[in-house]
């Protein structure tokens, strides 16, 4: 079996949709700039790249026309580099990594850029033309709003609003701390706006948020519920790129390997509680890796909502000190198609920084799925 490794991880700054720095930036431009940054920083030979695998949850409008190919052209990559757009909603760009890994394992290429993008200012969540199948809408929760699923999970796990808010505050504080320490500097590729302004930090985190601040917010989805905007990940504009290649290629070309992909998994679940998707997906991945939760040192759990995060933490028995060391999506943001690659890339860099062995990156997916990736430090 060919060993597949992560040999680079970068992202754009993340900014809140509509009011952030990227509200007027095309997602394809943002992604191209990020990919360019990945190539520059890793030193990978562009002509060796087989394919760009671009995760995107709503690939239409400015994210349409097979954005993966267009981004390659925008980034002035050699014409030989291919492009495929990957959609698994929030799991899109983690699937980009999985796809690349599978291709490499099959001998269908040595180097891939697994990327993801979502300009949520530019293409609304649900897209411009949501057209659900009426029959399916009637018989299943396939189209249920994400906030409603978060409420369902909160109910099922009897999670109070205060518990969710405490979790959100921790995420904000960790992100704030990481920003202060410059922990994001290495991963961020600055973006220059048309007016010359250089954007090199995140606009999403709200460090210093207190539980009192959050307690004052209105309920966002259910008048009788517990979930607010403060305990949900914000709509975000952002792009991510991860370099995935065979261990041999990395060694021959002097690339700095961060981690080896140990195992990967997908698992479906009930759409109305899609937030618990990570539970079964992580169990599958652990089993495939021959590991248990005790073996995992670093967990990057996507914080779509505080409620589903807490539910997954409880079901998987994840110790708090292992989770989202630099904060999660509630603080950093959740550009749907870009998040999966971020939490895999982030896990790889944390393994290096913390000197740990195994990491688990996992996330829930609208419509009822979970996805997980286990890495081993190189």
């Amino acid at each position, binding site marked *: 079996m060919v060993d597949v490794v992560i040999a680079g991880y970068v992202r754009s700054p993340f900014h809140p949709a509509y009011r952030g720095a990227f509200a007027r930036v095309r997602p394809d431009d943002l992604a191209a700039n990020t990919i360019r940054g990945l190539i520059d920083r890793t030193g990978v030979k562009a002509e060796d790249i087989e394919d760009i695998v671009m995760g995107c949850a709503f690939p239409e409008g400015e994210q349409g026309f097979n954005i993966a190919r267009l981004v390659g052209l925008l980034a002035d990559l050699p014409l030989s580099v291919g492009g495929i757009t990957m959609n698994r909603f929030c799991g899109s760009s983690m699937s980009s990594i999985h796809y690349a890994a599978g291709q490499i394992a099959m001998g269908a290429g040595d180097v891939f850029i697994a990327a993801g993008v979502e300009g949520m200012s530019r293409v609304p969540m649900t897209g*411009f*033309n949501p*057209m659900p199948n*009426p029959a399916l809408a009637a018989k299943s929760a396939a*189209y249920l*709003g994400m906030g409603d699923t978060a409420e369902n999970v909160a109910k099922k796990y009897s999670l109070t609003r205060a518990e969710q808010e405490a979790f959100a505050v921790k995420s904000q504080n960790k992100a704030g701390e990481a920003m202060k320490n410059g922990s994001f500097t290495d991963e961020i590729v600055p973006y220059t706006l048309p007016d010359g302004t250089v954007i090199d930090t995140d606009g999403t985190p709200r460090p210093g948020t207190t539980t009192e601040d959050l307690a004052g917010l209105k309920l966002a989805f259910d*008048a009788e519920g517990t979930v607010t905007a403060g305990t949900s990940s914000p709509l975000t504009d952002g792009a991510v790129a991860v370099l995935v290649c065979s261990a041999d290629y990395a060694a021959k070309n002097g690339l700095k390997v961060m981690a080896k992909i140990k195992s990967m998994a997908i698992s479906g679940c009930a759409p109305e509680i899609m937030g618990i998707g990570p539970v079964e997906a992580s169990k599958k991945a652990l089993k495939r890796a021959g590991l248990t939760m005790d073996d995992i040192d670093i967990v990057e759990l996507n914080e779509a909502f505080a409620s589903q995060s807490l539910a997954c933490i409880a079901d998987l028995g994840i110790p708090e000190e292992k989770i989202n060391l630099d904060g999660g999506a509630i603080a950093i943001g959740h550009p749907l198609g870009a998040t999966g690659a971020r939490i895999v890339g982030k896990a790889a860099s944390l393994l290096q920084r913390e000197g740990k062995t195994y990491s688990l990156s996992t996330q829930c997916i609208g419509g009822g799925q979970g996805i997980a990736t286990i890495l081993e430090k190189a």
Partner: protein
Amino acid sequence: MANNTIKKVCVIGAGTMGAGIAAQVANAGIPVLLLDILPKEGDNRNAVAEGAVAKMLKTEPAPFMGKRAAKLVETGNIEDHLGKVAECDWVVEAIIERLDIKQDLYAKLEAVRTPGTAVSSNTSTIPLAQLTDGRSDAFKQDFLITHFFNPPRYMRLIEIVAGPHSNAETVARVSDFVDRKLGKSVVDAEDSPGFIANRVGTFWIQASVNAAFDLGVTVEEADEIGGRPMGVPKTGIFGLIDLIGIDLMPHLMKSLTSTLPADDPYVKIARSEKLIEDMIETGYTGRKGLGGFYRINREGGGKVMESKDLKSGEYRAAARPGLVRGPAAKGDLGALIEAPGKVGAYAWAVLGPTLAYAASIVPEATKSVVGVDDAMKLGYNWKMGPFEMIDRIGAAKLREKLEASDIPVPAILQQVGDQTFYRIENGKRQYFGTDGAYHDVERAEGVLLLEDIKLASEPLMKNSSAALWDVGDGVVALEFTGKMNALDGEVMKLIQKAIPLVKSDYKALVVYNEGSNFSAGANLGLALFALNIAAWSEVEKSIRGGQDAYKALKYAPFPVVSAPFGLALGGGCEILLNSDAIQAHAETYTGLVETGVGIIPGWGGCGEMLSRWADNPRQPKGPMPAVSKVFEIVSTATVAKSAAEAKDVGFLRHTDQITMNRDRLLHDAKQRALAMVDGYEAPEKPEYRLPGPTGKAALDLAVDSFHKQGKATDHDVTVAGELAYVLSGGDTDMIDTVTEAQMLKLEVEAFMRLARNPKSQARVEHMLETGKPLRN
């Protein structure tokens, strides 16, 4: 002066008036520089003006007509930015009412302004001669007083005072600008204390308060007698004082008494009451304070309207006296002042001296009786001006009563003898001049009023709910005449009857009237009656009748221009949507509000809105965006709060035009229609590509979310479901075409299902009883 040369304005002073004037300039689409002094603290030197703009963005009623307008206001301070005045064609000073400070500012302005730039003061108290004292002749030539009323966006009156040195061309240029661009009605005033409206208004307030205290009339009684029966807004006098602020009264009194001669009747009646002084002292300054002559007592979780006992000073539950009855309640002022008991006594104690005072200021404050009447109607929202009231009472009778009350009879009231101040002569309204002769009431060029047309002609046709008028140049006007201009079968019949006439004898039709509002929509009372007796076929007939009439207008072989103002709701909005063009007054509040009464638009509004949004080039393409947008607008009963906002919401097309001055609306609409006559072709019938059930599924999901969030009630979900069905094209498929006729059929079917729903009927009934939507 159609091409006014005022392209940029500077307003100095960002208080309520200055900021409000700047907002109105911006509402007209004209860039405006708003300057104020440096803040007392902080680093931001523009903080005062910036703060004023920020505050206005949160103020209700909104000073700005839309977000774009706010962007036209550039803020600054007079230390750093006075030089920018050189870029402006008109400078409005609206700073503190202190002569020395104003004079100091004018000296600075003189140094920076471009010669010929008009400079005006918004002073309400300081004589023009004093303001320009010490300035050059050139400055004096360009100087005038432009006295706006608060709030500048909503009050139509502006008093303009020219001095002996003022250049006539400058005054004309500013007058033309405030008329056409700012939409204000100019009344020329003389340089006399308080000018016109505030002078009469302050007297009236004082006389009303004095009389209440002197005659032992309660607050509610005073407001009942002194409100509607006199054609005064229903707040009456004490309600009005609560609204403007009780603490303002001593200021008004001080400023007028200090500038008027000692023998002026106002100076003689000016007095303050211990009770009112105490109220101000303790923070009971009216609506903005702890309470006023009225307050709402929320103790114990209740909501009780209370009023002040003028004798004891205590609050007690407000009464509804019900004193004014018979002709006196219906506008017969003669009967009102002769009424027995306290009604007649109080009415006379207010009206006698007030009308005499108003008559006494002509020509000192303004050259003609028309100026006084216009000032009070536009500045104080009186239905009739003082001289129109005198005509109602009869000049001779008023004189007799004044003499009996030892009130001096003013010269013009003597002079008019047994005649009236207004008369109709050869189809023209004339007024009695100080020269003892009658003169035509002149309208400015570009002002055309149905009111005037009616004096000189008979309607081409009319019935109980509508009339058709020849407004000249081959254009007819369709007027709604029912209560609240409500729309019913009679209106639709008249439309159908009018079309062949216009086709054969005229060129174009405008939909226009001069009621308080364009139209509040369909006649709900009639609808409820039909629903209560389950006259389903009648209900359905009325929906189809409305559709037929509106579509007949739309496809008539001549241009149809609607000219809305005020409220244009429901069916009143749908007639706009079915017109070739809309010439809207800036203060138009329009929306499809049917869901509030449990139904959906049934006279073609759904399809017309879909067309507008589908044609919007800024919308994403595909079968859903237009459907989703229109669904959002209609399901939430969105009402645009100005004509500018109506463009954003899509009730108006971007080619539709806005008239700022209400009096110019008919003329502008007529011109718009005439411009379309040559080569006119009726519009092609629209065809829709709609998503069908899949679109409805998407909209239903959104509604379910709102329901969960507590933002939509159970019946909202039902009503929204029917709306979603219509807007998504019923059972159509995306690859099929939906015709306009099919859309209309869908509207009728959904409308009828809702009409039969008892919860919708409950909404209609509740709206009729309370004027508010039922949230069931």
